[in-house]
């Protein structure tokens, strides 16, 4: 367990709600009811949305909180294009980690995507509800896999 991981465990970054958020998005695991909500405060520069501030909340395990802390820290200050790339890179990385870590990390990544999509949809419909995406991975080990 490295020092960076322990620091995220001891003091998760960007944890909490955001009362004046411009958008919210939810990543959900339908199998066990765990979920992650990501709140964004967004500014626009030449029509490009930029993540000014970000918060997340989780109903889930410690791994989800660590993943939320790391990913939101990476996402803060990015424009949506770069944040989309962060989501895609994270999704590609999931095959290399254990199933339980993968599902927790995926939940955070899709919550970020959901929150950005909520923002995009609210450009046309300011009352659009928060977008929710469900994880594709499962905590269950496949045959031959180990944690």
């Amino acid at each position: 367990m490295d020092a960076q991981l322990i620091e995220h465990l001891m003091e998760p970054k960007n944890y909490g709600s955001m009362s004046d958020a411009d958008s919210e998005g939810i990543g959900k695991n339908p199998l066990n009811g765990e979920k992650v909500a990501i709140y964004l405060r967004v500014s626009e520069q030449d029509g490009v949305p930029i993540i000014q501030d970000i918060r997340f909340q989780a109903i889930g395990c410690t791994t989800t909180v660590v993943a939320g802390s790391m990913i939101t820290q990476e996402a803060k200050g990015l424009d949506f294009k770069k944040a989309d790339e962060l989501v895609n890179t994270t999704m590609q990385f999931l095959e290399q980690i254990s199933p339980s870590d993968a599902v927790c990390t995926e939940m955070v990544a899709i919550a970020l995507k959901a929150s950005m999509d909520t923002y995009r949809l609210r450009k046309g419909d300011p009352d659009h509800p928060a977008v929710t995406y469900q994880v594709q991975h499962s905590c269950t080990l496949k045959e031959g896999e180990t944690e």
Partner: protein
Amino acid sequence: MKTLAIKIHEAWLVTLMAGLMSSTQSKHILFDFADILFRHFRWIEAEMVKAGESYDYDRDMIPIQVDKLSIILNNIIMRLNQIDLQIIGIKRELSNRMSSDLSYMREMIAHLSDEEVHAFHAKRKLEYIPLSEEATDALTLFLFEESSKEYELIMIYNYLNAHSSDLYLSRVFQDLVDESLFHLKQFGDMMAKMGILGVPKMVHKELYQSIKIEAFLLAGIDEEIAAKEECRKLSEAVASNSKELAKFFDFINNQESYHIVLMQDALAYWRSKNG
């Protein structure tokens, strides 16, 4: 009252954390004061329920990583001052009591000796207890997971208690709050000794506001069984290195057994009352 409740909630947690950071007699004073603040929190919550005011347990993030206890003590005094300024609109007897408590606590905290804090060095070593890297990692994850869980249970049972008019269920909920407070302190104490103390994460309102008691108790019993198994595994993993630590996990394990009994009783009672 909502803002007041949030500020007391935060002050309670900071005072509890300060108690966990301390290695002197100040620890017990801070624990006692944390208990008083938690009672203030419950009383204000009861007032909000009575007044039909909507509220939740959302709060700010609480940074606690300091190297001197005096820094966190000054922070607590500042928080107590802010609470004192917010005590308006509640019944006079309660505001008088709270003001008097706050004044006494500020005075006492201002006179506590400074000490170096070792609760955040992240060395993850327990004095006189050598643990393998694997056992250390398992213990680390267990402590973070379970300290958050105990805090979550405190808040959920507290919310259920605040909204219950049934004396029997209230007693069970209060017992479970008290038990989880004790476990949170025990796990927090071990985290501080290992240099990995952290404030438990805020509880999502969905977990307590839209609760279905029967399903919650059933899931809670399963979780307690899982927690017991974790304690048993940890006890076995550390037994060869430390009999003392193994005994601690057996002790927690046996306490969890009684939580299951309390929840089973509450479940049977709930079903008998609600068909």
